[in-house]
């Protein structure tokens, strides 16, 4: 197995998997607790429109997907307030609109052989050193944000109105959280894929909440879960010759269900 590390693409994929494990382990807690899981799925699917726009314009699809996802994350919230509609409805509208735009952009780029499957389900062969550098930067900025604002996010998650009255800038923190959600989702697209990334937004916190009722332990368990699943899935996909994203998500789902059953057996009253 060690010989895999002689390959540049595998070394990059290993590093980015480790970083994404940490990122999703922490992000998942906030997203699940703030009941934004469908938003995570919506933003991930929005990335398809961004990737296709990059292909059409000949720009790096990472940049256009990032711009698309951040734009969608902000516009989804604006539409809720402007149209006085539910978050579910707003996400549903942007979700399908962006997928539709993606299909149109790709159709306009006639004669271009686009590897759609790699973007939808991930492909570690596409991971470059530049991608790992971007992941390191996202991790550094996100960790700084969490260190500074962790308690304030917890406060607004438990009790948004009181947090606002007590001096927490709820709208600003929510927007920053959405921007990070978009950035982390886009960073993971190459390895996990647009369709599957939403599982990583949900499963780590789901696992952590089975383990503990202390948020610090929930986050730590979420990181451990996400890192294990990302790295384990990477090796499994090599051994089984299966798509990496699909293997990571399947391994994560299996681990979650096993943990759920074990937790029910050990603590039947939960």
């Amino acid at each position: 197995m060690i010989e895999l590390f002689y390959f540049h693409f595998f070394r990059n994929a290993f590093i980015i998997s480790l970083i994404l494990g940490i990122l999703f382990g922490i992000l998942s807690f906030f997203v699940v607790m703030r009941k934004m899981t469908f938003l995570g799925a919506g933003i991930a699917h929005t990335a398809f429109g961004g990737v296709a726009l990059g292909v059409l314009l000949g720009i790096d699809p990472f940049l256009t997907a990032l711009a698309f996802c951040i734009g969608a994350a902000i516009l989804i919230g604006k539409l809720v307030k402007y149209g006085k509609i539910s978050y579910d409805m707003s996400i549903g509208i942007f979700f399908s609109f962006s997928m539709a735009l993606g299909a149109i952009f790709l159709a306009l780029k006639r004669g271009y052989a686009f590897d759609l499957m790699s973007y939808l389900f991930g492909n570690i062969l596409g991971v470059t050193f530049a991608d790992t550098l971007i992941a390191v930067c996202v991790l550094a900025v996100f960790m700084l944000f969490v260190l500074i604002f962790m308690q304030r996010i917890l406060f607004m998650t438990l009790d948004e109105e009181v947090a606002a009255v007590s001096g927490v800038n709820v709208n600003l923190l929510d927007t920053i959280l959405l921007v990070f959600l978009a950035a982390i989702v886009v960073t993971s697209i190459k390895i996990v894929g647009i369709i599957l990334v939403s599982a990583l937004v949900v499963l780590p916190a789901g696992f952590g909440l089975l383990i503990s009722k202390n948020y610090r332990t929930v986050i730590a368990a979420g990181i451990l879960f996400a890192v294990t699943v990302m790295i384990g899935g990477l090796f499994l996909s090599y051994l089984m010759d299966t798509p990496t994203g699909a293997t990571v998500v399947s391994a994560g789902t299996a681990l979650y269900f096993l943990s759920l059953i074990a937790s029910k057996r050990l603590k039947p009253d939960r």
Partner: protein
Amino acid sequence: MDEVISLQNVWVKYDGAVVLEDVSLTLRNKEIVSIVGPNGSGKSTLLKTIMGLKQPWRGTVEVMGLPPRKVPGGTIGYLPQRSSLDYTMPVSVFDVVAMARYAGARVLERLTADDRMRIDRALESVEMSDHRLRHFGSLSEGQKQRVLIARALALQPRILLLDEPSTGLDAVAQDNFYQMIRALRDAKDLSILMVSHDIGAVSRIVDRLACLKNKIHFHGKPADCFSNESLSGVFGKNVYYVTHDKNCDGCEDE
């Protein structure tokens, strides 16, 4: 400053409909005032307007002589209706109270020794120190209310706003809770504005009562309210007020 909250001819609209109509109300220093009225009478909207979460369409609102949005964070301690809280959050009693100390403008979220002392005192004042490490969601309804009061107190506020604080509490827990509120007012020099639909329970501890059904129908001493026709204007004709007898705890001071 004698008046800590002042509303002058305040009108508030919600989705185009007038919810508060020409409301004028004051809360004086170290006073307990309760706003009573049926569901949908605009009580919670009134609190949100005072906190600056809702803008009045007409009229002026001042808190400590300032417009609500200019009031420094921590001046107001707020106890929301419990239905708005997420009890599945994996946080302890200590974590919940500590949140108040993190909410200020400090960049790094580190609890100082002073913060810890204030959190401990807030928990002590509501008799919840022994439960500090328990999961917040696992507490009884009365204990949760006490913890949320402790969180508000940890801000060291001048004013407490309580929205339906006795909902879900049984008669004994309700009575204990109101006695605690009065004791806190005396011990910490707080001014307290409390919203309730239970006129009987709050009338024994408040200094003044305001009956609200979109507009103020009565504003004065609780005893005057019951001899005033405004009660039927707010709650309807078929309402009977049941008072506590002389043997109940605290009734002898009335």
